């Protein structure tokens, strides 16, 4: 919880600094050059911490020398901002020294004292000494004292003891509406910080914050908006109301306007109704494109560009203003515009093409960051013919730009390769050239990853790519990259034209590198040996040389692999019942972590039975972790502009995860999973507890996986189960359940219920009840009190349905007619129905859903006007029986569709069951 709230405040702070940040990034190049010319550009350059601490002694002097103290305090702040760390003891010393200066009246000194007190972060035991003094200053007549004291106190309270807030709440509340804008802004900023530690108190200030929002002052209005958002953060409805009303009455402050644009975008993205875009808010974004401040215009344009599922039409006004920015005299505007367009170009290259002319103008921009982004954008939007020219241009200054921009270039080249596979030669050459140059790990990794992806996608590029990589590992300082490449060589090398040429490169690693790389090289060699008979004897020879390696891992691998290869040489397929090819060439079906734990358990309790992978079990928590990891992976894949893999990944992952279920210790006996249903919601979204269910079918069991999401921030659910009432469903018996130990707010958890099929194929629906122990949680802390015992509660869910389709797996056949004839009419069942649907298409979709079978030979798309249609379906029924069906549909009247269903399978009982399931 703490995390999400800090995210929101980050956003608020970023708001204030975004322009600054952009400027700095844009200027960093010029700055860097300057620095090179003129080493001592800062008066504090090369300052020694110890020397400054020495100077701090003068804080103890009887007479305070304001000038001198000001310099010293500035130095301390400089050190802290440079990342210098003071030890506990040093902090204490400086802190108490500074408190002695609190007697000073000098305004400038005073301001620095407050700053240092805030930045030093003294320990809670020490900091109490200044609380009273600051409280006094908070009531001073001097605005400077008041404002600063509020900031420091706010920071101290947030960092040490939130309960102190009650003592000063009255003052803070007053300060929120202080006539002096500096004081008011300080109180608002403190409120933003305090929100995380004592939200309850801050929420009571909502009226004052609303008043502050009306302020004429830029900064006050901006901070008031940020705080108001924080206060209402948990209430999606309230937020959207606030945003909607503010978008109607324009805010004076440009900063606040920028913030509002961000909030508006967030509301649009989080809109539960999902699909449709909130028109009013989008119009607001669009209207902001005509604001008089560049900052607001940019913010709006960038918001529109990053909307999910943004359409070409929606983009075009934003692109137009960004295009204008491209020609601005201010480097900062050019930079931000080109950076944003660069991102858009990844997803919507067409939308950005109108800017191509202006982009061309930036290719030679004095600011290399801008030039790089312009070129990479052009690479994404341009035509195939321009590739060579752009590549030449970028090559000319590749050595002048920073690594992070080089990565941008590499990313663009990856996209190019996939778009224009014919250009792979030029691009690969470029990649291999840059691979040879100096660069940090992240940059080199980006290049290697790109080559790997291109090899995977463009078969013609494979040989050249592998050759480049081979050359790279000859002189690669990054172990991680070397091992990754060696692995790839092992997988891909054997299927190339001349596999033997890679052996030398790989074997060189065995001779020259560290143990980790040597071990990878050994494994890679073995992969050649397994696949290529003619190379095997020489590989064995090479591996035998590794048998005396001084590293255990290398030696163990070599020993094992030599034995394996000799086994194959002797005519076997592997060793000790292990198939060599499977062992080395295919991924493990289990998380490594699970195997590790099982190994440890086995070692702790050795038994006579040898350890096998089949006995490895997976804990529910690990399942959860795996899922999270996969989700982030999918998200990064999506971010890496690879839409196809991004979409496919989660699906594949759901399958893999479902397979792991029978590795849960409780469910090992279920055996191989037959199929899994789609996720069915058992409660409406947005209710207190959102529950959905996946049904997994096993040969004689039904495993129900309930995902529970707790949407109440003030509750912790423990020992969560879903009770299912199977009494009215004959043939099903409750067997066991696996509760979810805890479901905190916003972190969904899984609970399982295992049902056994006693007889037949039970279908029907049954009641479900969520049962759990509730503990009250203080949202500020995110945890229940120690002594909280909680109480049992229940929550009724919608009924869960088991249908015939759950026992069917969608499996296509290659030639339906042939299969249909082969199976014959021995076990054929024909049924006719009259279905009340308005259209043929609706009726067809419904029937397919009921049957749960796969559409064959593209028969799933009836013509718009068709009055009759035939669908061919195939599937595999539980137990592995193939089932085929022909569905003839005919529109009878406006409200009814006639259907004839013909089912064939190898078993009469199954044919009948399937045919009757539509009724």
């Amino acid at each position: 919880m703490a995390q999400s709230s800090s995210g929101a405040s980050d956003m608020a702070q970023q708001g204030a600094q975004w322009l600054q940040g952009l400027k700095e990034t844009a200027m960093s190049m010029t700055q860097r050059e300057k620095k090179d010319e003129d080493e001592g550009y800062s008066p504090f350059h090369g300052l020694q911490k110890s020397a400054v601490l020495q100077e701090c002694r003068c804080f103890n002097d009887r007479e305070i020398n304001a000038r001198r103290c000001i310099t010293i305090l500035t130095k301390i702040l400089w050190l802290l901002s440079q990342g210098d760390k003071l030890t506990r003891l040093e902090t204490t010393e400086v802190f108490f020294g500074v408190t002695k200066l609190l007697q000073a009246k000098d305004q400038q000194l005073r301001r620095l004292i407050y700053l240092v007190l805030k930045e030093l972060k003294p320990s809670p035991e020490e900091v109490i000494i200044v609380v009273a003094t600051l409280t006094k200053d908070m009531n001073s007549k001097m605005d400077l004292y008041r404002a600063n004291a509020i900031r420091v106190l706010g920071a101290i309270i947030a960092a040490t003891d939130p309960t102190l807030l009650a003592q000063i709440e009255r003052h803070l509340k007053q300060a929120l509406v202080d006539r002096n804008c500096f004081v008011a802004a300080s109180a608002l900023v403190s409120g933003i910080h305090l929100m995380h530690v004592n939200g309850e108190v801050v929420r009571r200030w909502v009226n004052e914050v609303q008043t502050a929002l009306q302020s004429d002052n830029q900064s006050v209005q901006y901070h008031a908006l940020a705080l108001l958002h924080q206060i209402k953060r948990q209430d999606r409805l309230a937020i959207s109301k606030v945003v909607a009303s503010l978008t109607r009455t324009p805010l004076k402050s440009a900063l606040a306007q920028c913030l509002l644009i961000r909030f508006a975008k967030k509301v649009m993205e989080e809109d539960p109704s999902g699909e449709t875009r909130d028109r009013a808010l989008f119009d607001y974004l669009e209207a902001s494109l005509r604001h008089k401040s560049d900052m607001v215009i940019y913010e709006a344009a960038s918001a529109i560009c990053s909307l999910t599922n943004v359409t070409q039409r929606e983009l075009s006004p934003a692109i137009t203003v960004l295009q204008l920015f491209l020609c601005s005299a201010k480097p900062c505007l050019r930079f931000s515009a080109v950076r944003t367009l660069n991102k858009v170009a990844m997803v919507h290259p067409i939308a950005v093409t109108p800017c191509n002319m202006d982009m061309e103008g930036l290719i030679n921009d004095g600011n290399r960051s801008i030039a790089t982004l312009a070129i990479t954008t052009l690479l994404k939007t341009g035509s195939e013919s321009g590739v060579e020219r752009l590549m030449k241009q970028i090559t000319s200054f590749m050595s002048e730009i920073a690594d992070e921009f080089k990565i941008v270039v590499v990313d663009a080249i990856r996209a190019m390769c996939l778009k224009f596979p014919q250009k792979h030669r030029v691009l690969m050459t470029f990649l291999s050239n840059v691979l040879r140059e100096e660069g940090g790990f992240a940059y080199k990794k980006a290049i290697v990853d790109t080559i790997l992806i291109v090899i995977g996608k463009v078969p013609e590029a494979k040989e050249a790519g592998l050759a480049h990589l081979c050359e790279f590992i000859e002189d690669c300082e990054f172990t991680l990259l070397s091992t990754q490449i060696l692995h790839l060589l092992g997988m891909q090398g054997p299927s190339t034209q001349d596999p033997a040429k890679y052996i030398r490169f790989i074997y060189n690693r065995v001779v020259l590198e560290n143990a980790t790389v040597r071990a990878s090289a050994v494994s890679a060699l073995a992969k050649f040996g397994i696949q290529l008979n003619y190379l095997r004897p020489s590989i064995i020879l090479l591996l035998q040389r590794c048998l005396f390696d001084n590293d255990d891992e290398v030696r163990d691998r070599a020993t094992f692999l030599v034995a394996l290869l000799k086994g194959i040489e002797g005519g076997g397929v592997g060793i000790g019942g292990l198939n060599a090819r499977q062992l080395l060439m295919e991924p493990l079906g289990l998380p490594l972590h699970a195997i590790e734990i099982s190994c440890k358990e086995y070692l702790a309790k050795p038994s006579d039975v040898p350890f096998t992978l089949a006995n490895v079990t997976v804990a529910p928590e690990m399942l959860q972790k795996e899922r999270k990891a996969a989700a982030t992976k999918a998200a990064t894949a999506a971010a890496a502009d690879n839409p196809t893999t991004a979409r496919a990944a989660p699906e594949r992952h759901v399958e893999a995860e479902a397979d792991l279920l029978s590795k849960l210790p409780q469910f090992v006996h279920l055996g191989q999973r037959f199929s899994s249903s789609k996720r069915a919601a058992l409660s409406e979204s947005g209710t207190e507890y959102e529950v959905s269910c996946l049904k997994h079918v096993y040969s004689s069991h039904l495993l129900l996986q309930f995902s529970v999401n707790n949407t109440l921030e003030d509750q912790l659910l423990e020992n969560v189960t879903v009770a299912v009432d199977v009494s009215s469903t004959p043939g099903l018996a409750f067997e066991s359940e696996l509760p979810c130990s805890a479901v905190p707010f916003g972190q969904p958890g899984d609970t399982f219920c295992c049902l056994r099929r006693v007889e037949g194929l039970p279908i029907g629906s049954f009641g479900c009840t969520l049962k759990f122990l509730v503990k009250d949680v203080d949202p500020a802390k995110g945890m229940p009190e120690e002594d909280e015992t909680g109480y049992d509660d229940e929550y009724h869910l919608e009924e869960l349905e088991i249908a015939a389709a759950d026992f069917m797996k969608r499996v296509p056949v290659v030639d339906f007619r042939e299969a249909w004839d082969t199976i014959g009419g021995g076990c054929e069942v024909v049924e006719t129905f009259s279905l009340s649907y308005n259209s043929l298409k609706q009726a067809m979709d419904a029937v397919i859903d009921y049957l749960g079978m796969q559409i064959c030979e593209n028969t799933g798309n009836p013509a718009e006007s068709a009055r009759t249609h035939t669908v061919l379906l195939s599937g595999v029924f539980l137990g592995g029986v193939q089932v085929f069906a022909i569905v003839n549909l005919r529109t009878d009247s406006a409200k009814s569709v006639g259907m004839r269903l013909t089912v064939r399978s190898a078993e009469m009982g199954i044919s009948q069951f399937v045919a009757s399931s539509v009724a």
Partner: protein
Amino acid sequence: MGLFKRLFGQITPGKNKVRILCIGLDNSGKSTVINWLKPKKAMAQDVVPTVGFSVEEFTKNGLSFTVFDMSGQGRYRNLWEHYYKEVGGIIFCIDSTDHIRMCVAKDELDALLEHEELRSVPILFFANKMDLPQAVGPVQCVQNLELSKITDKPWHIAASNALTGEGIDEGITWLGTQMGRAARAK
């Protein structure tokens, strides 16, 4: 520098400024003592328990004093020592009616006397609240706190009533002289 100035060295800029520390258990009357020393118009009507510390200024006998009035509450006492460095003098307030906590006061005092940085720093004790009937006299305080054992620094004890100011001037004058002497010796 003229002869006159040399004799009354305190007048030299910087040298007529002194920093002192006022400590003692909570409720012993530290803030009340300091309050009485302040100029009439800066005086507070009622004194509340100090939180942390507060800095006060006043002049007495041509010396301008900056006083750190520390809080005497338990959790602040171990922070006193951070203010020992470079101080000119110490005022230690004793609530002479608080018989029970006299030993606590002694413990705190002993810790203070041990401190290297306070060596030869003059220390003035007020046996405060002398107006109240249960009050014990200064002699009794000297005995209870074993003040006679102090040998490495000048010390002095005065019975005082911080509400009326009785005894305070006498004590501060002693402290001023001691500090003047120390300053001239430097």
